[in-house]
Structures are given as C-alpha cells and as structure tokens.
C-alpha cells in the first residue's frame, strides 16, 4: 500500500522493533583465491584487452606506491598515500566505465586515474608540486585531477564530492530528458562514479548526497570503499547496522556489496550499475569490502592501533588473485610479468628524478585562479610582494631569480 507519507503501510498488531542488522546484504564473489571462477558464479564478459589493461594498472600502481612510500621516507616528497589491498576495487570499477564517465574520487583512487591514462610524469609532477603539475603546485601530494581524463581534482575535506557527484550526474541526465514528458528519452551517454571511504560515509554530505540522488534520480554510482579503517578508527566505531550498503537501501537506492579484492566481482557489479544508471537514470550504490593493508598515509603508523595478527588475517592480494586467473586464461605469463615489473621500476625512478628537477611554479601562480582574473586587491598584493622579493632575493630562492 502506498500513501502520502511514501512508506509502505503493512499493518501489524505485534509491538515489534526491527533490528539494525535485520538487513543482511550478501557479498558478490566470483574469483577464488586460486584464480578460478566459483562453481556457482558467472564470470562477466571481459575482453583480453580490458583484462590486461586492468592488470597492468594494478601492477603499475603497486610499484608506484612502493616507490613513493620509500621516496617519502627519504624526504623527497612530503606525503604519500598508497592503496595497498584496494587495487582491484578501484581499478576494476574504473575499467567497467566509459572513458568519458566522470570520476569524483576521495584520494586513494590513483589506480582509476592511471587506468584513464594519467601518465607517470603527470603523477610525479603533481607530487613534486612543480610547474608542470596540472594543479599548479597548490595542493599536497596525491591531490590529482585532469579535465581531459574526466577526473575531478581531489579536495581534502571528506565527503564534499558526494553531493557534488549527485549534481554532476543530474547534469549528465538533464540533456536526455524529454522536455514535454519529463521522462528519460534515451540512454544517458555518460554517468558519474563517486568514490569515498566508509569513514567519509559518516559525514553529513554523504546523507545529503544520497538522499538528493535518490529523490531526484541522478545517474551516479556511489562506490563506498569499506576498508575497515578511517585512519585509526575501526569500522565498528564508525557505524552500526549492516555496512554502508544498508544505508543505500535505506535511501531507496539499488545497492550491491562486492568482495573488493575480486577484480571480476567488482567489474561485473560496476558494469551492471552503470547500465542501471545510464538506462534507468537513477543512482546505484556499491559497497566494496577490501581491507586496507597499509598505513592510512605516510603520516601514521598502524602498529599503534591494530595488531600484526589482525593484519596477517587479511593478507589477500587482489593483484595475485587476478593474475592467477589471467595466467589460466593464457593471457599472461610469469616471465613477461617479471620483465615488465623491472622495466616499470626503472621508469618510475627516472620519472621521479625528472620531476624533482623541474622548477616550482612562478610567483604569478600564487594569485592566479583565485578568481577568473585577479581582483584589484590581489594585484596590489602581488606587486608589493614582487617588490619585497626583489629587495630580498636570497630569502625567496624559489621565485626570486625569475621575477622580471
């Protein structure tokens, strides 16, 4: 029965409360640890090209993460965040999208960006905040973004991208709506995927974003990476009830939970989610479960809040699992894989050295992009600053030499 309160009035005469865990959502799993398809599962259709690209992206990101973790310890970059344990969740979801779908990420999704074609040098230039960084050296390392690749530049405040993704996706849909009937006239050509952690799902923006998407039917795929921790806070201190997935259901959004260490499960779920968003013009929520194997960032030490035993219990390598499947398909062999890894390691080191040598952005970049053109007070401040630096060039070595 439907009524003006928009709830089902299923009259009952027992005084009964529904438990927070009443909704238990299953987890889609397709690949076994050995790289076989579970007997009762159906593998998604994935081309050799896509499967290999997916694997190569994960392999690359693992090596990049390892090297940059090290580079941070050597003091060469100020900060880094790896995605150890979540490579499949991020890469396989990105692989299931169209290249022109919008990606609005949290910060641990460098693999999705690389899948899109962000080059090694582009990664390095951002991390070294040099003048070739697309973000002009303004944000901390890992705050990537690229208009060309439809990857919205990362913002540090958590959750802010969630309602934005709803709005962006709504924009993608509006042009497909028949002006007369108000109905969707065709499949939506591009949709939005929005990544966030289970921690960020506590922010007010999460609730606002999901509710708006559900009510206004925005074609957005909410991709919750439930990796068990928000910095030191374990999931059980973050939320009650059955994960983030149950929230999607609560908001009236089609929802699925997947094993985030299983590239094929994530690929299949995201492919289907995209189809729903694009053809039905409505949101979908995917909750991926993949333990965060590494530290939160280079600024923290997980030994302070979780035991080695706990970590050992979760040591599923999503990359190895997928690799085993690829080998069984005869699409990959160990020898080529080992050779490729060596070559990538060398490339990474060379790119790191290149980016380190590129100079920092010019002084003008301090005041550009605050507005479309600098307002008078900024121009005044810039001229004063320039004069000051000219008088004391030794104190401002990064910019002094280049001031005209």
């Amino acid at each position, binding site marked *: 029965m439907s009524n003006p309160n928009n709830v089902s009035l299923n009259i009952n005469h027992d005084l009964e409360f529904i438990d927070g865990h009443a909704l238990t959502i299953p987890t889609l799993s397709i690949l076994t640890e050995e790289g076989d398809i579970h007997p009762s599962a159906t593998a998604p259709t994935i081309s050799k090209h896509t499967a290999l690209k997916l694997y190569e992206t994960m392999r690359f990101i693992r090596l990049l993460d390892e090297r940059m973790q090290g580079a941070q310890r050597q003091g060469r970059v100020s900060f880094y965040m790896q995605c150890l344990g979540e490579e499949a969740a991020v890469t396989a979801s990105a692989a299931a999208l169209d290249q022109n779908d919008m990606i609005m990420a949290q910060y641990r999704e460098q693999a999705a960006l690389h899948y899109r074609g962000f080059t090694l040098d582009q990664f390095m230039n951002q991390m070294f905040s040099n003048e070739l960084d697309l973000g002009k050296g*303004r944000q901390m390392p890992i705050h990537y973004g690229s208009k060309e690749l439809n990857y919205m530049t990362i*913002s540090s405040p*958590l959750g802010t991208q969630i309602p934005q993704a709803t709005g962006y996706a709504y924009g993608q849909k509006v042009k497909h709506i028949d002006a007369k009937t108000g109905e969707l006239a065709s499949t939506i050509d591009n949709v939005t995927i929005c990544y966030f952690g289970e921690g960020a799902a506590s922010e007010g923006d999460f609730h606002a974003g999901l509710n708006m998407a559900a009510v206004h039917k925005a074609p957005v795929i909410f991709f919750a990476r439930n990796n068990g921790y928000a910095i030191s806070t374990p999931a059980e201190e973050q939320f009650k009830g059955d994960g983030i997935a149950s929230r999607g259901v609560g908001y009236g959004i089609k929802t699925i939970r997947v094993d985030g260490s299983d590239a094929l499960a994530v690929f299949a779920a995201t492919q289907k989610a995209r189809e729903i968003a694009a053809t039905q013009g409505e949101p979908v929520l995917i909750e991926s479960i993949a333990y965060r194997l590494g530290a939160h960032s280079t600024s923290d030490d997980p030994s302070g809040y979780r035991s080695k035993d706990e970590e050992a219990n979760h040591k599923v390598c999503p990359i190895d699992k997928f690799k085993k499947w690829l080998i069984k398909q005869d699409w990959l062999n160990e020898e080529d894989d080992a050779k490729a890894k060596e070559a990538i390691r060398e490339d990474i080191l060379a790119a790191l050295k290149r980016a380190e040598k590129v100079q920092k952005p010019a002084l003008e970049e*301090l005041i550009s992009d605050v507005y479309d053109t600098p307002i008078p007070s900024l121009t005044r401040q810039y001229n004063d600053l320039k004069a000051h630096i000219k008088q004391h060039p030794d104190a401002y070595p990064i910019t002094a030499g280049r001031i005209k």
Partner: protein
Amino acid sequence: MAKMNMLHAINSALDITMNEHPQACIFGEDVGYFGGVFRATSGLQEKYGKHRVFNTPLTEQGILGFANGLAAFGAPALAEIQFADYIFPAFDQIVNESAKFRYRSGNEFNVGNLTVRTPYGGGIAGGLYHSQSPEAYFAHTPGLKIVVPRNPYQAKGLLRASIKDDNPVIFFEPKRLYRASTGEVPEDDYTIELGKAEVVQEGTDITLLAWGAQMEIVENSAKQAHEQGISCEVIDLRSILPWDVETIAKSVTKTGRLVISHEAPITNGFGAEIAATIQQECFLHLESPIMRVCGLDTPYPLALEKEYVPDALKVMAAIKQSMDF
C-alpha cells in the same frame, strides 16, 4: 615545573579536567586509543575509559551537535576537530547553535561547558586544506570566545581557563609548534585569564601585535629591529574574542606605531578589526598608519608557501616603513 612541549601541556590540561569532573568527555576523530593524529589525547582513554574518551564517527557536524547537547546537559564537552580546516562542516552548529544557545533561550539553556580544540595554521607543507587560520569567521559571531596560545605554558593555562569559562570557547592550537615549542610548565593546575593580552617584550618605538604561531615570527623581527636600533613592544593578543583593547591602546599610545601580523588572508582578517578600533582609540597618538602583515587574499598555497606567509622579513619591512613614515 616540568619541561613540556605543547602537546604535553594540552594533555595535562585535559587530564586535570577529566579528574576534576566525572562527566567530562573527550571526543573527536581518532582521539581514543590512538590519542588523536597529533597525540594530544594520548593515554587518556586508558586512564578514563572508553565511555569518556572516545572516537566519534567521521562527522564534524555530528561532533559539534553532540557536543552542544552534552554541554547543554551540563557535562564538560571537550571536542576535537582534527584540523581547523575541517571545522566548516560544523559551522552551523557552532555559529547558529553554540553561540546562540544562551541568548535565544533567555538563559534557560546554555553550552558554557563546551570547549572545541582544533589545530590551525601553516608551516607544515600542508597546502590548502591543512594550513588555514579561520579565527576571523568565528570572531564575527557574538556568543563565542576564541583563544590562541603561543607556547606550552600559555596553552595549558589558557586551555584550563577556556574549559572553566562558562561560555563556548574555540581553542585554536598552532600545530607547527606542537612539538617545536617546549618550555617549563607547572604540573599542577593553573589558569591564564581569558580576554587579556600579554606584553611579551616592552619597547618604546613601535608596537608589534600577533597571536599563536605568528608570535615567534614577530619576536624574530623585534630582534632584527633591535639590532637596527628600533625598540619594539611585542604583544601576544591571546584571546581573539573578547580581545583586549585596553592593553593594545595603552601600548600604541606610548609607541605611536602599530604593526599587526597574522597568517590568515588580510582582507577581513582579525587585524582589520584591531586596526579600526585602535585607530579610533589612539588617533591623536599615531605617528604613522597602522600596518598589517598578513597572508595574501588567496587560499593557502603549497609550493610557494614561503612567498605567501607573513615572515619575519616582511614584518621587518613593515616596521621600517612605519618608522620612516
């Protein structure tokens, strides 16, 4: 007395409070067992239990809404916002709720038991979202008190006073100095009166005014100035709201010159309020226009932080300009 850094001093003030009031609660993101990302609350969960020192879900809006309720109940609510940059999701709860609880209810209810601690400011290569100094946004809101300490001794005494104060207080902690600034701090309880500036160094030619981490910078400039024969009076404002007009006006009446320095962007920064008030109070005593050395009107940058920041050299240039006026 014991040698402490600022984190120890803050921890000590919290410890005393937890001992003093059986319902006092410390909460925020990662503050529980982990002790907060800067470790200001280290050891307190072990000491006072999980029901009084706890991690919250990741929701600043929730933290402040919860804190308002807890404080309205009458328990000391010691909320932490992990970085001042992330206080904005809680802006409504602070500006419309904490600040107006007492006024709108005719003092039927109030949240005087609320203290919000949050690390602010730059100098840690944190870029846009780990470096902001948002004190001026809150200084426009009647009903709040705003406090910024400059060293461990000040931090403990001012934090204890903030907690004891019967108004909601936002306590901005200069994160650059958390470990960098150390000094002798009494292990026992003490307070430093809110709303009072401190004359840190007496002088005759010009007054330098700052707060928090910027104090170190202006003290440096005062040394440079001294070498050039200029005698600076250096004042730490300590409380942004309410602020100590009298001490500043008295100093400027004596020296005839004032340089104000803060990290936040210059336009509508709190320095603007000070300049306007002191101009009115001291008009006939001023020998030169009041100068401000502040952040630029841009978001806080990363690569060009040195250029952006009001450093000692820029303060020195302002001192000279004022002296030569």
